[in-house]
């Protein structure tokens, strides 16, 4: 008799984004990943820009800056700022919590169960509100700076 192999059933990278009806932290995680990669992309572009255009001299540089003041680039830049803010603040939370702080102590579970992350949800709420506030501040700046 030939041996039947169990069928593979991994969700794969899709499972990072959505695997079920989960709540907040699961999505904070994937946003952290997406923003991280997003800023990385920006960093590379930024690097190319600030070097390539710089070596070509003052005219080219100023022409580029002119282009960059175009509203569409501004919006892109704004998104990078938001992503960065989110990644930075959530990153700080991760650093604190992954070192085992601000999660509480393990206690015997009492039905109905509440895990530590849910008990400490005000952390995540805090981050989200700070991000929102800072976004508004930046947004103001974009408007004041002229689109």
């Amino acid at each position, binding site marked *: 008799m030939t041996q*039947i192999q169990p069928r593979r059933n*991994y969700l794969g990278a899709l499972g990072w984004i959505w*695997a079920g*009806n989960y709540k907040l932290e699961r999505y904070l995680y994937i946003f*952290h990943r997406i923003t991280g990669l997003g800023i990385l992309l920006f960093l590379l572009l930024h690097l190319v820009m600030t070097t390539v255009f710089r070596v070509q001299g003052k005219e080219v540089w100023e022409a580029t800056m002119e282009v960059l003041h175009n509203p569409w680039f501004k919006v892109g830049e704004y998104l990078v700022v938001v992503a960065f803010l989110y990644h930075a603040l959530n990153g700080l939370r*991760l650093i604190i919590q*992954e070192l085992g702080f601000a999660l509480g102590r*393990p206690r*015997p579970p009492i039905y109905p*169960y509440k895990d530590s992350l849910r008990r400490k949800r005000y952390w995540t709420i805090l981050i989200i509100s700070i991000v929102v506030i800072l976004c508004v501040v930046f947004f103001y700046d974009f408007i004041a700076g002229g689109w």
Partner: protein
Amino acid sequence: MDKQVVFKVQRYEPEADGNPHFQEFKIPAKRGMTILDGLIYIKENLDGTLAFRSSCRMAICGSCGMLINNYPHLACHTQIEELRSDIVTVKPLPNLPIVKDLVVDLIPFFNRHKSIKPYIIHPDTKEMENPTAEFVQSPQALEALLQFTYCVKCGICISACPTSASDRLFLGPQALAQCYRYCADTRDGGEEERLTVVDKDHGIWHCHLAGACSEACPKGLDPALAIQLLKRRLIIQAIGLGRKKQPASIVTPPAEVKPKIPFPEFTAKRTE
């Protein structure tokens, strides 16, 4: 709550060589009926070929984990009523290979649990082989690990964890939490051995605190917390602040002995 509920069950027959597909069953649901009861009803009355695991039907053996309406849970621990829907989709747990229908292969998962040395490692081997007295452990010390001993090894956290979704080699929340459980035990002296196991590629650092494991765990464990506490131990060791733990010692015999409680009266006691 007497009503008809439709169960959409994912079927997969390995010997027929087909692909997983859904089959629908209509079930009369009563108040107090669990998903497992529903599946048993299907098996006994509608289609005997349906395969699923179950044993204790009281949420303690860990056999019946499955994906119910896109949320992993124990079938015997989910009331049909609380789903508040007339259609229930039941699928095998993701991130684990499927054997048949709702049965998944957990052997690799057990092996990962085994790899973190889930047993007490104590330097005093003589005492370990032939105990003379109990180790002292305060209720507070017990509390620090108690919840992690409640793990029923159901694999639900694996199907919730995003890292496990793509990384087949990832140790997974269950094994990591058990690693913490044994390291945190005051009776244990095997922390160093265990830390080298979790600190490797596809090890503990691929946990990004997504927290889905804690959210989904049907027994109220908080593997996410255990993993972070374990990370703290690793970092402390890495920057050289770790102190070697002294495993607990046995109780000293009590100074005074209370009198035996009086023996109840009975008839003729024979001499031996």
